[in-house]
């Protein structure tokens, strides 16, 4: 589903990703771990088509993420580590998601409700004025409502309280299993129960890849 071959990315003289080769299949639930600067976020950004590779190639469902970004992004849900300070209201952000990705607004509200975020009460509020936890809950609700075949979560629970974390993992368990989930995390104990593969990175290289 995602094929990465000898992928490298350099910024000036800094090598952020060094000849990485990996293959992710449907049904894989992967914990991507490593110290800060290991290359995890760079790898994700290359998969999402944000970066042009310095060497090697990425294919998502057979497509190049740079050339066919619209096709591949229809299949991907992404939750960033820190919710960005988007100035749109919740209603406008939801309209953006629904119209651009064909997501059902009722489904976003459903998942938000499951995450204890009440959209109706906050619809006209600016997204950036919400608390960090509320923002993250909405982004998680959007990612689940998109019903993508590939889910990419970059430290998705960093801003969540323990109850909200439980809600998030419960909803993930309830969702379809035949998808590819990629969790960037520093807390393996949180995702241990739901992943079937652990990848450790250091200095831009994959140092261990455990499948079980």
């Amino acid at each position: 589903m995602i094929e990465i071959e000898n992928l490298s990315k350099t910024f000036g003289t800094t090598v952020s990703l060094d000849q990485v080769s990996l293959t992710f299949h449907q049904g894989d639930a992967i914990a991507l771990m490593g110290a800060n600067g290991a290359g995890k976020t760079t790898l994700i950004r290359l998969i999402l088509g944000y970066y042009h590779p310095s060497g090697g190639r990425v294919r998502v469902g057979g497509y190049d993420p740079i050339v066919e970004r619209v096709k591949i992004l229809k299949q991907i849900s992404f939750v960033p580590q820190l919710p960005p300070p988007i100035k749109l209201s919740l209603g406008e952000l939801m309209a953006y998601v629904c119209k651009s990705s064909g997501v059902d607004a009722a489904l976003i509200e459903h998942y938000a409700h499951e995450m204890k975020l009440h959209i109706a009460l906050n619809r006209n509020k600016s997204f950036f004025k919400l608390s960090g936890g509320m923002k993250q809950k909405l982004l998680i609700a959007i990612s689940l409502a998109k019903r993508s075949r590939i889910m990419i979560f970059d430290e998705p629970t960093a801003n969540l309280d323990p109850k909200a974390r439980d809600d998030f993992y419960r909803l993930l368990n309830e969702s379809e299993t035949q998808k590819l989930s990629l969790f960037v995390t520093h807390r393996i104990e949180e995702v241990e129960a739901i992943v079937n593969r652990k990848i450790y990175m250091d200095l831009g290289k994959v140092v261990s890849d455990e499948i079980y």
Partner: protein
Amino acid sequence: MNNLLLIAYLDLKESIRANWFMVYAVVFGGLIALFFIAGITESQVMGFSGLSRLLLMYIQVTIVILPIFILITTVRSISGDRDSHILEYMLSFPISLKQYYWGKVLGRFVTVFLPVFMAMLMGILYGVVKGASVPWGIFFLYTGLLLSMSLAFLGIAFFISSIVKSSEMALGIAFFVWIVLLAFIDIALISLMLQNRMSEGLIITIALLNPMEIFRVAAISLFDPELTVMGPVAFYILDLFSQGVFVLLCILYPIVVGMVFATMGYRVFCKKDLV
């Protein structure tokens, strides 16, 4: 609604709520109000009076402040979103870069043009209520000039926004561009002429390549078709073009400049890393 219009619509809504937009709208609306309060419409100096005088004053002030307003408010459009990771999230949805970029350009164009146009329209309407005769020809031509100058600086701002990595750098470059173009309206050109190293034709060509200068000369030509207030320079211009052709050029040239810069910005936006 297709994605391009969706981006434009959301950018417009976001801009209208922003503090800078309030200042921007108040400045141009306030200028018109100030002109009425100051009795500009009753002034007879240099033969202009009524709404013609008001439009002349408005356009003279607009030449200086509109470009810098457009540059500093637009230049952070892409670079600011990149800095704050908004771009990273918004582009994780299936929107093409073409739709995102040109949607932003369209939304921002409406945002920057409407207050300037509405302020001028308000002035005209107030004048009508007061019983003044409306110089419709000048009004429509000024609308064309404002539109073309807005597009020129919007294109330049989007180009800067695409090529730089940080919004601070984008602001710095925008300010530099404004200062250079402003200097080449008068001061820099006069110093070039005084040095006597360049031909007058070349200096006038440099002047007419500057969208701010061409806007100013076109504005003057609407009141003074012989460009007598400009002195001998008028001969160069009027020997080359008729007044009608010159005004048409003054409207089309900044539009072309804006579109060329916006297109170059789009190409850079597609070729570079997005975040």
